[in-house]
């Protein structure tokens, strides 16, 4: 469940005022946000993703004083997340292909992302559960075909076909909505 900017900011400010419960709620709510942030950029290194999520939580906690209460919370959060990832690559001396740099540097539009997610949810709900799940696993959560297949306990070709048919149905529906 993704929390809104307003809710996250409220938890953050309460935490800054010393409310440990709000602070814990904030950190818990950040976990899925950060996971999807890193998963989209790291391409399937799940251990690294979890390490980065934890490092980012620690940074959010120890460097809270750098947050300006007058400004959006998620902008601050993603600036820290981006720094953590660049530092991660630097430490591992990983070089990043130039076409991926754009994906790393792209600013996270929280509002846009939330709206887009609502659109995607609405569209996927019109598909069969199996197709919706296959698309969600492979194209939103970033799993490989093999991972998606073993998670859903179906064959790999079944996943591929579900994705393909699902997209076809979505395309037809979108064309229908427009005309």
């Amino acid at each position, binding site marked *: 469940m993704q929390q809104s900017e307003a809710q996250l900011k409220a938890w953050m400010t309460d*935490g*800054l*005022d*010393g*409310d*440990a*419960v709000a*602070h*814990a709620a904030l*950190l*818990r709510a950040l*976990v899925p946000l950060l996971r999807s942030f890193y998963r989209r950029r790291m391409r399937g290194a799940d251990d690294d993703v*979890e390490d980065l*999520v*934890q490092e980012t*939580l*620690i*940074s959010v*906690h*120890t*460097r*809270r*004083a*750098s*947050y*300006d*209460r007058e*400004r959006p919370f998620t*902008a*601050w959060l993603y*600036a*820290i997340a*981006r*720094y953590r990832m660049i*530092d991660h690559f630097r430490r591992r001396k990983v070089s990043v292909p130039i076409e991926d740099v754009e994906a790393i540097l792209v600013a996270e539009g929280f509002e846009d992302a939330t709206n887009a997610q609502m659109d995607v949810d609405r569209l996927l709900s019109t598909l069969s559960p199996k197709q919706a799940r296959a698309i969600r696993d492979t194209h939103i959560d970033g799993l490989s075909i093999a991972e998606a297949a073993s998670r859903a306990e179906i064959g790999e070709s079944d996943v591929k076909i579900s994705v393909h048919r699902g997209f076809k149905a979505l395309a037809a529906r979108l064309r229908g909505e427009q005309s």
Partner: protein
Amino acid sequence: MNTDQLIQSLSANVPAVPRRALGRRIGFGMTGGAIITLALVVFILGIRPDLHHAMLGFSFWMKWVYTASLGIGSVLAVARLARPTPTSLRWVWLLAIPVLLLAGIGIGELASTPSSSWLAMWLGQSWMICPWLVLSLAMPIFIGLLWSFRRLAPTQLRAAGAAAGLAAGAWAATIYCVHCPETSAIFVLTWYSLGILLAAGVGALVGPRLLRW
């Protein structure tokens, strides 16, 4: 440690963070360093004996306004760079204003002085050590700022290091004024500025390494 345990242990200790925590943190770091710098100037270099008299004159205040205005501008830049979100630093060029003003005063001085004594006025008595003293005296303040940054989140490390070096240099020069007996504007413009720039350069050089988090 799994993520849930981590969150539990992190939220076991949630001290309140006041609204102006960032400014306060930078202020503490700089003040701590500045006290050491002041102690070094007072106890090792010595306060200039005619300080009372000099404080009535123009050149003392000219030096102070010059170094302090650079100091204020660079501390504002440090505060901006201590937050992770990108910010525009275009206004940093305003720091050129005190430099240009001082250059104007310097040109006036040169015009009213016979050219035979220009060299003596420019070099003063301490040109060889002045920049190095400013650079050394900047170190305690720079270290204080490194301490400040430990709870803050700079993401442009080279720029943050340079700004911290500039701030440390400018405030060190401000403190150094109570010792330094030089009076001419072109002396200050050259040798003070050189010391401050050296400090900024050192900051830019070590920033990416020392400010990493």
